[in-house]
């Protein structure tokens, strides 16, 4: 590896083609954002079904920011990174400058709670974790940042 290599804090992503997208908090803008995941997934030859999984995970991260973050700037910031020597993975970072939440404290959902206790919501984060290969959530009074990666 050359000396101009990765910075210590972002080991795997330095040098990866990076695309940033900012969308407004507005109905259906999450779908507009998925167009970017689609285009980058095709660019890196990710199989269609995996692209669909990435798109749904992105949708869930966006609608969480829309619904729960109460951002001041009314925006959601998304960064896409294609990494690995032959475009092996797609990483998506979704950030809001909202009020944050206690990610550890979120109760896990289950079909039983959903059907028997009629608590039908609360699946977003679980779906993101199920569909992506790696997920990291950081949240605080500065907002929320979800980092998720899918290998092709």
């Amino acid at each position, binding site marked *: 590896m050359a000396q101009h290599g990765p910075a210590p804090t972002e080991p795997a992503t330095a040098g990866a083609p990076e695309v940033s997208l900012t969308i407004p908090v507005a*109905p*259906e803008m*999450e*779908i507009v954002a*998925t167009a970017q995941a689609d285009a980058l997934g095709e660019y890196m030859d990710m199989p269609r*079904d995996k692209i*669909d*999984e990435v*798109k*749904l995970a992105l*949708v*869930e991260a966006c*609608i969480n920011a829309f619904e729960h973050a109460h951002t001041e700037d009314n925006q959601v910031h998304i960064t896409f990174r294609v990494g690995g020597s032959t475009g092996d993975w797609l990483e998506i970072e979704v950030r809001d400058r909202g009020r944050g939440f206690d990610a550890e404290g979120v109760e896990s*959902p*289950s*079909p*039983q709670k*959903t*059907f028997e206790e*009629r608590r*039908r*919501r609360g*699946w*977003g984060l*679980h*779906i993101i974790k*199920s*569909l992506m290969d790696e997920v990291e959530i950081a949240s605080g009074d500065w907002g929320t940042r979800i980092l998720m990666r899918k290998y092709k």
Partner: protein
Amino acid sequence: MSETCKVSVERRGDVAVFWTDGYINNQGGEEIAREAYSELDRGARALVMNLEKTRIVNSIGISILIEVLEKVMERKAVLAFCGLTPTIDKTFRIMGLAQYAAIYPTENEALRAVSAPA
């Protein structure tokens, strides 16, 4: 605007067939729910939902489909899905929708199954 899911419904005897086209979010889910309740009120015994023209159903959309499923079960009717993409199928299984509603690959299979004498 145009991403919004379009829903069309056709009645075949006591089976109502739904075709969705587009993204199912809260709005799309509510549109489906409205149509579903009206079909149940008009005596439908089975609902078949063909989602082949839908590539994304978000978790809010699914939560509304689960509400519909519960209403369907209360009325002793049945709900079957078909034409799901692998991702939608996976999400329906994760959320448990697949435990209470039947999922078939094609509309024909779904129709045959809900029309078979119990």
